[in-house]
C-alpha cells in the first residue's frame, strides 16, 4: 500500500499521462489478430460460450439476493438503458471509500451497501456473470476516458506499474505490449494488450475470467508475485489500460485464445 502511495506521488509529479501509450489511430483490439475461427466464435450469437455467463448474469440482475432485499433491477431497472455505456467508463471514482473502483468492485460494493448481502467470491460464476451482463450493455460503444481529476493519481500509478520492471525475468507490461506488440513470444502473437472485452471467455481457461485474472496470468509468466484480486494496484492498472485503449469499442462478451 505504501509502495502504491509512493508510485502515485512519483507519477503525479510527471503530470497528465492518459494521452500516452500507443497513438490512438494505431490502437488495435486483440480481436483483429485472432484466427478467423475464433473471430467467428465471438461474433456468433449462439457459439460464443460466454453467452452462458451472460444469461446467468441476466437472471441474477432480476433476482433479489434475499426476501425483502432489492434485486439489481429494483434500483437500476432495465439494464439495457441504465447500464448502457457504464462499463466503458470504468474504473470510476467511489466517493464512499474515496478510491477508484472497478466494475467487479462496484458490484461487490453494491451487494454490501444496498442489498445487505455478502460479496461474491473472487472470480465466482455469479460475479463474472453479473459483470459480463453489465459490461455487455456497453458492447459496441467506445471506451471513454472519464474526466474526473480524482482518478489522476490512480492513472499515474497504473502507468508506473505498467512500465515498471518486475519479477525474476525483469519484464514490464510495456516491454511486450508497448515495445513489441505484433511480434511473437514463442508461438504466441503479442497483442497490444487492450482490455476491450472483459470479462471474456478464454479458450485456454475453458471459461470466463476477469481482466485481473489475465493480469495475474501475465505476472506469473513474468515470474513476479501477482497482486491479490481487488488490490488497488490492479484497479490503478485497469484505469491506465482503459485510458490506453480508448476509443476502441467494448467487445464484451469477447472470446480469446
Amino acid at each position, binding site marked *: 500500500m505504501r509502495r502504491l502511495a509512493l508510485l502515485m506521488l512519483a507519477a503525479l509529479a510527471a503530470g497528465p499521462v492518459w494521452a500516452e501509450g500507443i497513438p490512438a489511430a494505431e490502437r488495435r483490439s486483440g480481436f483483429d489478430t485472432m484466427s478467423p475461427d475464433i473471430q467467428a466464435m465471438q461474433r456468433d450469437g*449462439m*457459439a460464443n*460460450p460466454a*453467452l*452462458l455467463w451472460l*444469461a*446467468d448474469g441476466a437472471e441474477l440482475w432480476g433476482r433479489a439476493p434475499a426476501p425483502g432485499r432489492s434485486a439489481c433491477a429494483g434500483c437500476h431497472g432495465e439494464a439495457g438503458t441504465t447500464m448502457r455505456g457504464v462499463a466503458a467508463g470504468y474504473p470510476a471514482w467511489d466517493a464512499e471509500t474515496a478510491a477508484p473502483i472497478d466494475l467487479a468492485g462496484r458490484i461487490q460494493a453494491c451487494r454490501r451497501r444496498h442489498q445487505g448481502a455478502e460479496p461474491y467470491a473472487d472470480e465466482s460464476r455469479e460475479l463474472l456473470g453479473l459483470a459480463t451482463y453489465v459490461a455487455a450493455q456497453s458492447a459496441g460503444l467506445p471506451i471513454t476516458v472519464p474526466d474526473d481529476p480524482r482518478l489522476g493519481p490512480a492513472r499515474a500509478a497504473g502507468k508506473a506499474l505498467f512500465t515498471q520492471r518486475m519479477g525474476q525475468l525483469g519484464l514490464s507490461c510495456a516491454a511486450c505490449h508497448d515495445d513489441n506488440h505484433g511480434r511473437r513470444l514463442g508461438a504466441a502473437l503479442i497483442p497490444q494488450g487492450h482490455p476491450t472485452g472483459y470479462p471474456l471467455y478464454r*479458450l485456454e481457461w*475453458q*471459461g470466463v475470467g476477469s481482466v485481473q485474472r489475465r493480469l495475474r496470468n501475465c505476472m506469473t509468466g513474468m515470474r513476479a508475485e501477482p497482486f491479490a484480486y481487488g488490490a488497488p494496484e490492479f484497479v490503478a492498472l485497469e484505469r491506465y489500460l482503459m485510458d490506453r485503449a480508448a476509443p476502441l469499442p467494448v467487445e464484451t462478451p469477447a472470446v480469446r485464445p
Partner: protein
Amino acid sequence: MARTLINVPKTAQAGEVVTIKTLISHPMETGFRPGADGRIRPRDIITEFTCLYDGETVFRAELFPATAANPYLTFTLRATQTGTLTFTWRGDNGFSQTETATLTVT
C-alpha cells in the same frame, strides 16, 4: 441444472433443411488433470447427446474427454412436420438434462 442455449428456427417449410445449434454449460473435466492438492480430479464429462424429433432419433453424438468445456453442437435436419425437438445430454455422476423446443413447419 446446467444452463443451455438452443437455437431452432421458429418456422420452416416442409422439406427444408434447418440448422440446430446447442450449447450447454459443463466443465468437461477430463479425469487426467491434477487439482490444486496434486490429486487427479475425477472425470466429469458429458458422454452422450441425443436429439429426438417427435420421438425419433435424428442426431446422436458420443463425447469423450478431449471435448472442450461447454460443448457446442450444431447439426442439420430435414423439417417434415410441426413437432417437438427433445435434446438430452447425459454424462458422468448421473448427469442428465433434457430441454425441448418446437419446430413449426408451414
